[in-house]
């Protein structure tokens, strides 16, 4: 028995004995909590060093880094299985297939799942938006090409759920050095989703975009959030968009291309397309000003009419234009959104990526197995959502956005 008090011998019988692997030690709740907290922040070697120091473990009773790693993999996969089980049950109860995340054939989904229960904008709300548009238009040369009625924008953030999704890749550890075996992919992609409703938020993570999308869908179903407007904030990656289209085809949604990523992409492509630093900066500034008001067509027209004298590489300019054409639907009127205090950025998921995965698993020369990487991210997710006591004490998932009661759908 491993505990904070030391390693103690205990005689166990029946079911309790059978639940253990040979030579596996039972770890107390406090010990699991302590080691998990340590291992999700420090390397296994440093964690073992720190634990041995703090718990005064001598050579014979010392905690080994390999044991910690095995233990974290076990805890992480247990959390993932439980999460999958809970999510599967929620999906099935609502008429979805738990493997694909799609509505079952011949199942008619209930209306409150398919149609957001939101009042249409009244005249005062429209006037409020129109005032914001007018204010911006008087201050800027680049005008907003829409009126309040044409602009798809939320007026009350409590009518919306903001979902930010992103992938974070960590180096994949080679499983074997044998030449004849198929090559492993270079990165393991952990997908992270950040769900925000009002002041509350919740983080979800899994290996693979589809798994995460299923978790997001079941989370929204369980928390009755599908009667709200869904607003996805992404970096514009094709696979994110295609998974949103596939999983949320039964429900209206809006996808917003994160302003930071749009700006970065424009900077990169224009620097390869145009001659001279001054030209690049001048065109970039103008282009971003046009995009800030959501005028993707205007931006494309502006690029098409650039003087050929300043173009260095036609191919990259065409790539820039086709990028804007591809992302047109996701480019929104950032100026009005900013004026009304609404989100333009997917920075919340970038932060979650950092906390759940990058801080521990990236930029340190380490490479990871799929289970190892996924397990640490999942354990960190429990801490990030603030229900570590519920998990380690009761092995239950708290699937509610406001940190409410734990969920036991197995009962």
């Amino acid at each position, binding site marked *: *028995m491993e*505990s*904070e*008090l030391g390693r103690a011998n205990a005689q*166990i*019988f*029946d*079911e*309790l004995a059978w*639940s253990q692997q040979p030579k596996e030690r*039972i770890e*107390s*709740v*406090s010990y699991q909590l302590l080691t998990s907290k340590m291992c999700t922040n420090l390397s296994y070697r440093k964690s073992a060093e720190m634990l041995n120091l703090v718990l005064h473990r001598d050579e014979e009773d010392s905690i080994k880094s390999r044991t910690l790693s095995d233990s974290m993999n076990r805890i992480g996969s247990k959390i993932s299985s439980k999460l999958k089980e809970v999510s599967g049950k929620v999906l099935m109860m609502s008429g979805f297939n738990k493997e694909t995340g799609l509505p079952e054939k011949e199942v008619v989904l209930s209306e409150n799942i398919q149609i957001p229960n939101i009042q249409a904008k009244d005249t005062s709300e429209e006037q409020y938006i129109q005032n914001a548009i007018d204010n911006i238009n008087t201050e800027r040369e680049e005008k907003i090409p829409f009126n309040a009625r044409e602009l798809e924008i939320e007026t009350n953030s409590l009518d919306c759920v903001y979902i930010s999704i992103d992938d974070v890749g960590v180096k994949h550890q080679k499983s074997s050095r044998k030449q004849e075996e198929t090559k492993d992919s270079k990165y393991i992609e952990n997908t992270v989703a950040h769900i925000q409703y009002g002041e509350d938020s919740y983080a979800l993570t899994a290996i693979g975009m589809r798994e995460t999308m299923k978790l997001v869908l079941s989370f929204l179903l369980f928390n009755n959030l599908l009667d709200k407007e869904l607003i996805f904030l992404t970096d514009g990656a094709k696979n994110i968009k295609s998974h949103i289209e596939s999983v949320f085809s039964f429900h209206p949604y809006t996808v917003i291309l994160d302003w930071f990523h749009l700006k970065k992409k424009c900077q990169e492509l224009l620097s390869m397309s145009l001659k001279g630093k001054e030209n690049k900066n001048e065109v970039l500034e103008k282009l971003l000003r046009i995009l800030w008001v959501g005028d993707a067509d205007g931006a494309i027209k502006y690029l098409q009419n650039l003087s050929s004298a300043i173009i260095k590489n036609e191919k990259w300019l065409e790539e820039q234009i086709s990028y804007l054409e591809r992302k047109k639907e996701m480019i929104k009127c950032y100026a009005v959104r900013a004026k009304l205090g609404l989100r333009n950025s997917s920075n919340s998921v970038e932060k979650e990526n950092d906390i759940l995965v990058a801080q521990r698993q990236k930029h340190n020369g380490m490479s990871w197995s799929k289970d190892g990487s996924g397990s640490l991210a999942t354990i960190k997710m429990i801490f990030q959502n603030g229900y570590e006591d519920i998990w380690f*004490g*009761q*092995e239950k998932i708290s699937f509610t956005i406001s940190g409410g009661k734990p969920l036991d759908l197995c009962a």
Partner: protein
Amino acid sequence: MKVRFTAEIIDDNGNIIGNRVSEAGGIPCPEDFDLSTKEGFLRDFDKLEKAVLKARNEIGKDIVEEALDNTSKKTKFQI
């Protein structure tokens, strides 16, 4: 059920010059200790571990304070 720790400071002549006691309760009785399932065992062991840690930390702190108190009294006397 509860756990009680007793600590004594004994000088080189065998005299007890300080002692402290700490207690913590809420531990399941041996006959109530759940040994049938892992969840039950971990829950009951958690109560035991937390009580022992609480009492241990308290007694450790108290006896150190007692020892330091004795040291300062002796130092004052010598001055």
